[in-house]
C-alpha cells in the first residue's frame, strides 16, 4: 500500500508541470491584459501602462515569467490577485468551502438516488422502470448545464417560488464563518432559521450540478450490477438460502460497487468543471465563480493559481478514490 501511494505521488510531478504550462499558456493567449481591464472604459496613458506592466513583471519574456512563477509556486507562493492584492492562496481557501459544500451535496444527491435506482433497474431489467431509468438518465447526461439550470430556475424559483434564485443564504442572516460550510456554521451558531435558508439555497444548484453524476452513477450501477448478478458466487449465495435482499445488498452490491467507486472518483473532475458553470449561474460564491471573474479580469496570478489548486484537488481526490478502491476490493489490497 505504501509503495502504491508513493508511486502515485511520484506521478503528480509531471502532472503539475503539465497543468501549470497549460494554464499559463491559455491565459496569456487571451487578448487583453489586467492593467487595461482594471482601467476600464476610461483607458490608460501608455507610459503609465508600461510602467505598471514592468512593476508586475509582465514585460519579461513569457518563458521567464513562467520560470519565475514555478520557482515561487514551489515555495508555496502563488502570488497575489491583481484585483484585490490578497494572496491567491488565501482567496482560494476562503471561497473553496462553498464549492466543496455544493459539490458534496451534488454528489450526495447523485449517489443517494443513483445507487438504488441503478440497483433496481438491474434487478428489473427490461421492465418499464428499467427503460424509464435508462431513457431519463441519457437525457440527464446530455443536458447542457446552462439550459437545465435556467429551466429549473424558471419553474421552481420564478413560477412556483419554491426556491431562491441565487446566493448561499438570505441576506437577512449573518453567520460568523467558522468552517466556511454554511450548513455547519449556521448550526454552530445555533440559528435554525439560517440553516433552513442555507439548505433552501443549496437545493437547486445541487440538483443542477448533480444531474450528470446522477445519470452516470445510475447507469454504471445498473450495468455493473447486471454483470455481477450473473456470477457463480451469486448463485452460490442463493443456494445457501439467503434472502433476495441479502444476496443483492451483501453479495452483489459490494462487487458491483468496485467500478462505481472509480466512476464516482472520475466524476470529481467533471463536478468541479460543472461547478464553474453552476456557481456562475446561481451567483454561488465559490472558487468556480471566482475563476470565471478572474479570467474576465485577466487576473493572471488568480487564474493560474486557481487552476493549479483545482487540479491538485482533483488529483488528491483521485488518489483517495484509488485507496478506497483497495478497501472495497481485497484483490487489490493484497496484490502487493
Amino acid at each position, binding site marked *: 500500500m505504501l509503495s502504491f501511494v508513493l508511486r502515485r505521488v511520484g506521478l503528480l510531478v509531471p502532472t503539475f508541470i503539465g497543468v501549470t504550462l497549460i494554464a499559463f499558456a491559455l491565459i496569456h493567449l487571451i487578448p487583453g491584459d489586467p492593467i487595461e481591464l482594471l482601467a476600464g472604459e476610461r483607458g490608460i496613458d501608455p507610459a503609465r501602462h508600461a510602467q505598471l506592466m514592468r512593476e508586475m513583471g509582465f514585460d519579461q519574456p513569457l518563458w521567464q515569467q513562467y520560470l519565475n512563477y514555478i520557482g515561487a509556486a514551489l515555495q508555496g507562493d502563488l502570488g497575489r490577485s491583481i484585483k484585490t492584492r490578497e494572496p491567491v492562496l488565501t482567496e482560494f481557501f476562503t471561497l473553496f468551502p462553498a464549492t466543496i459544500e455544493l459539490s458534496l451535496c451534488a454528489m450526495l444527491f447523485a449517489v443517494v438516488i443513483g445507487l438504488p435506482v441503478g440497483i433496481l433497474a438491474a434487478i428489473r431489467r427490461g421492465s418499464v422502470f428499467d427503460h424509464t431509468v435508462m431513457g431519463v438518465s441519457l437525457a440527464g447526461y446530455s443536458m447542457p448545464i446552462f439550459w437545465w439550470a435556467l429551466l429549473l430556475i424558471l419553474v421552481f424559483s420564478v413560477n412556483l417560488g419554491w426556491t431562491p434564485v441565487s446566493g448561499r443564504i438570505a441576506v437577512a442572516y449573518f453567520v460568523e464563518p467558522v468552517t466556511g460550510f454554511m450548513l455547519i456554521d449556521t448550526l454552530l451558531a445555533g440559528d435554525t432559521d439560517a440553516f433552513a435558508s442555507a439548505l433552501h439555497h443549496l437545493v437547486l444548484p445541487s440538483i443542477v450540478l448533480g444531474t450528470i453524476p446522477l445519470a452516470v452513477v445510475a447507469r454504471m450501477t445498473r450495468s455493473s450490477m447486471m454483470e455481477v448478478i450473473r456470477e457463480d458466487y451469486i448463485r452460490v449465495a442463493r443456494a445457501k438460502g*439467503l434472502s433476495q435482499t441479502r444476496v443483492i445488498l451483501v453479495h452483489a452490491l459490494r462487487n458491483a460497487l468496485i467500478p462505481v467507486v472509480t466512476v464516482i472518483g472520475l466524476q470529481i473532475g467533471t463536478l468541479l468543471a460543472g461547478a464553474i458553470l453552476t456557481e456562475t449561474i446561481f451567483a454561488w460564491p465559490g472558487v468556480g465563480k471566482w475563476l470565471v471573474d478572474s479570467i474576465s479580469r485577466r487576473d493572471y496570478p488568480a487564474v493560474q493559481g486557481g487552476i493549479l489548486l483545482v487540479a491538485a484537488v482533483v488529483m488528491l481526490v483521485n488518489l483517495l478514490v484509488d485507496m478506497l478502491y483497495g478497501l472495497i*476490493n481485497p484483490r487489490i489490497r493484497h496484490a502487493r
Partner: protein
Amino acid sequence: MAMLEIDRLTVEFGREEAPFRAVDGVSLSVDRGEVVGIVGESGSGKSVTSLALMGLIDYPGRVRAERLRFDGQDLLAASDRQRRRIVGKDIAMIFQDPMTSLNPCYTVGFQIMEALAVHAGGSRAERRTRTLELLEQVGIPDPASRIDAYPHQLSGGMSQRVMIAMAIACNPSLLIADEPTTALDVTIQAQIMDLLRELQTRNRMGLMLITHDLAVVAESCQRIVVMYAGQVVETGAVEAVFAAPRHPYTAALLASLPEHGSYKSRLASLPGVVPGQYDRPRGCLLNPRCPHATERCRAEAPQLRSDDRGGVRCHTPLAADGRPTP
C-alpha cells in the same frame, strides 16, 4: 417413501410458443444415505435439473413438475421463504468451478458463518468455532489462519474444500454435487472425491453426484441415472447397469471407459453431439446417433418403461448380449 422425490420435472426456456425443453419429464429419487450418480454428456440437462430442485431457475425459465417433494414437504407449493428454510440447510449444493463460486469480496470464514447465521443461529463465537471445526473436517490445514483468507488466496482444491465446508455447515440430509471435480487437477480430483465419500458416509447424507466420470460412479454410487437431451434414458442399480446396459446410449458411454476399450475413442460408437435448442429430432432424441435406430425410432418417441431392474427409454432395449430386442 424416498427422501427426495422428483416426478416428471420439466424446465423450459425461451418463448412460450416455441419453448426449449432443457429438462423433459425427469423423474428420480434419492433416499437417505443413498448415493445416486447422474451422468450424461454436456447439455443433457443435469445442472438444470438440480438448479430447478434448488429453486434457482430464474425468469424466463419455467419449472413444472407432477411432484417435487423433499422429506415430506412439497417444494412446488412452498413459498420462497419456506423454500429458503430448506435450501441451504437440508439440501445443499456444490458447484463445478470453485474458483468462481466464492465471493471475492468476503473472507472464507464470513461466507461459511453466513450460512450458519441464516439457518442455525447461535452467537458469533459459536459460529466461528463451528467454522473452524468444519474447515478442519474438510481437510484444510491450519484452519485458524485460513478462516480469514480471501478466496483469491486459495488454490482451486482448497476453494472446493471451502465450498464443501459451506455446504455441509448445517448438516444437510441431501447434498447435490454438480461435477465437483471437473475444474480441478487430476491429483486433486481423487482427494476431493475421497473427502465427499467420507463425509457422505459419516453424516449419512443422501448424495446426488453429477459427473461425466463413469469410473467415479462405479466407485461411489449405488444407483445411476443416465440423461440424454433433457430426458432420463436409463436408471438402475450401478452393478446391473454396468454389467448389462439396456439403452444404446448407456452402452456407448460405458464403451468409452478405458477398461472397455481405447480411452481416446470416447463415445466412438455414437458420433455427433447432444441436440440443442434448434436441432431436436422427431421420435427418439437419440435416433440420429444411434446405431440401432429403426423407422419406429425416427417416428415415435419412446416412453420410459420401468420394471424391477429400473427404467429404460428405448423401443428396442439391449438384451444382456448387447443386441437390440426387436
